[in-house]
């Protein structure tokens, strides 16, 4: 019994860490601009696909990873520069449609140039599963978790100890005030897109050895990342992590103990329940509306 439970736990945490990284990406952009970036899923896809194709061409893994992240960051910066910035102060719904258009564009581009096949990335440290109290864990899962923790620590340091990080936080709290103290909010927006793209791409690369990657993995991952971000409270970094992990765990437990066909409904039932009782998500800030 415990072996089974542990197995579900491991699989839940592994996939939850991916959701967490996706959710972080959503939160960072939301903080800087109030935009929900539906193209976030495509950044995840770009990371995995680029890395898979580079290694297939013979590029050594570490270099392939670095290049793949660069590709995604470039895509993120382009999306911000060409799609978000020109839209200036459009309504929320309009911005959502723009990011959806961006995600379709990126996905369509990858589909036409790189094809519709599924690709695998070699595991970072081999495929031999580790045995732990009757359950098995892939070494790649440890990589996913480990890197996620490192990233979380790095972001925490960045936001609280560096000037740039604090500037980003300031922009998220009050854009006008930040501009008044001389912060270049346009640049902040650009950086936030680049950072989210990098995070997404890393998540995609880390998970690709376990789950394979193709041109359309971005759809579901992006959606679940959005759910996780909302679950934890949009704009809250800690919320994104908790939301992502919680989501992964609940999914795995539902598949294991309840019904595998309804496991995909679980994230959405969960979010509905949470939002009914906590309209700002688990960690979201209480907003006072200016009238």
């Amino acid at each position: 019994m415990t072996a089974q439970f542990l197995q579900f736990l491991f699989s839940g945490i592994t996939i939850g860490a991916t959701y967490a990284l996706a959710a972080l990406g959503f939160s960072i952009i939301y903080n800087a601009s109030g935009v929900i970036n539906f193209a976030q899923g495509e950044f995840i896809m770009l990371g995995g696909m680029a890395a898979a194709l580079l290694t297939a061409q013979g590029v050594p893994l570490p270099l392939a990873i670095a290049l793949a992240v660069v590709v995604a960051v470039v895509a993120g910066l382009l999306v911000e520069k060409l799609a978000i910035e020109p839209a200036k102060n459009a309504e929320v719904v309009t911005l959502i449609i723009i990011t959806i258009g961006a995600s379709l564009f990126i996905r369509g581009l990858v589909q036409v140039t790189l094809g519709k096949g599924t690709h695998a990335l070699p595991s970072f440290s081999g495929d031999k599963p580790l045995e732990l109290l009757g359950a098995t864990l892939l070494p790649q899962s440890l990589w996913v978790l480990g890197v996620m923790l490192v990233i979380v620590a790095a972001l925490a340091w960045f936001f609280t100890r560096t000037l740039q990080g604090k500037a980003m936080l300031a922009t998220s709290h009050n854009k006008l005030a930040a501009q008044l103290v001389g912060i270049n909010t346009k640049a902040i927006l650009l950086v936030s897109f680049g950072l989210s793209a990098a995070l997404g791409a890393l998540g995609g690369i880390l998970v690709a050895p376990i789950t394979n990657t193709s041109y359309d993995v971005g759809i579901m991952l992006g959606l679940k990342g959005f759910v996780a971000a909302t679950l934890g409270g949009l704009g809250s970094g800690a919320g994104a992590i908790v939301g992502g992990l919680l989501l992964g765990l609940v999914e795995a437990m539902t598949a294991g103990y309840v019904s595998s066909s309804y496991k995909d409904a679980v994230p959405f039932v969960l979010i509905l329940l949470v939002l009914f009782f906590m309209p700002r998500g688990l960690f979201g800030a209480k907003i006072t509306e200016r009238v």
Partner: protein
Amino acid sequence: MKRRDLLELATVAIATMTLAATSMGAYAQSGDIKIGSVLSVTGPAAFLGEPELKTLQLYVERINAAGGVLGRKLTLVSYDDGGDANKANGFAKRLIESDNVDLIIGGTTTGATMAMVPLVEKAGMPFISLGGGVVIVEPVKKWVFKTPHTDRMAAEKIFTDMNKRGLKKVALLSETSGFGQSGRKETLAVAAKHGIEVVADETYGPKDADMTAQLTKIKGVAGVQAVLVFGLGQGPAVVTKNYAQLGIKLPMYQSHGVASDEYTKLAGNAAEGVRLPAPSLLVADSLPANDPQKPVVTAYRKAYVDRYKEDVSLFGGAALDALMIGVDAIKKAGSTDKVKVRDAIEATKGFVGTGGIVNMSATDHMGLDLSAFRMLEIKNGNWTIAQ
């Protein structure tokens, strides 16, 4: 809104509609034989639809290069339904009413096919489907035929093999896609007939990344002797890798949905020993020299690989069979008269296709029997005929 705005609106609306109306005209030369197709080249069924389209395009080209059919060239009019049955229905109407095609090949998925059936039946258009569901030809519909093996055949072939190995208690893991669910339905329906007991019934989504939860549950079921996975594309590959990760030693059977090299590449070593029913297309080289299918499948494989630099799949093969049966029927009918062509398709006998030997009749609009499927086993990443 002021009056001027209304006029502007009216102008925009009329202009848009006129533009659209004129640009939607048919574009083939008259005198050509028009073959229409509605395939899922993008979307969740792209894995099947893309090789189908590529095969059709390649062979229409080859046929035209060899002089065409009845002295006329073939034109392929193809649309992509993106896996959406509603769109498929719309495109079928377009093919029938606007493009005036002579024959329709298509419906990558059973859902898309069934959405087009009422239209082709009403219009009297010969229609060869590429969908897998047994519901397409059962009950028989006058104008609807199909070339791929049914999911029921796959289940029966698998169960026959299981009986030979003495495996009686099976766990089923099916995909929530149309292919998987149709397969699940047929598997459950014919299990008892073969003395098989399905002891677990789990599902997974086509884009899921991790099936260890479902497999752990299956592993824990008392008395389970084998696992049958019904899905296609990347899902079964993930299942296979998870299988190895969890250290499950039970025999694994897959459906014909994984009969492509992408599966063996993605699943890697984990796929060792996996058995599945598949047409002889995958083991063309191991076929004995006197096998009637050998020349057909070898030629197809060579042509496809030479042109597209990727390996063949049985879905592309089904498209080829459909095209050839259609072309043969037109030749036999001596014209593109739809009633004559339909009758000729129904009278297909002894046609050697990539999927098997086809013998159609008024009560059988598919024409394949269980011998069209071979039982394959994966050894060292290669397809071999199971012993």
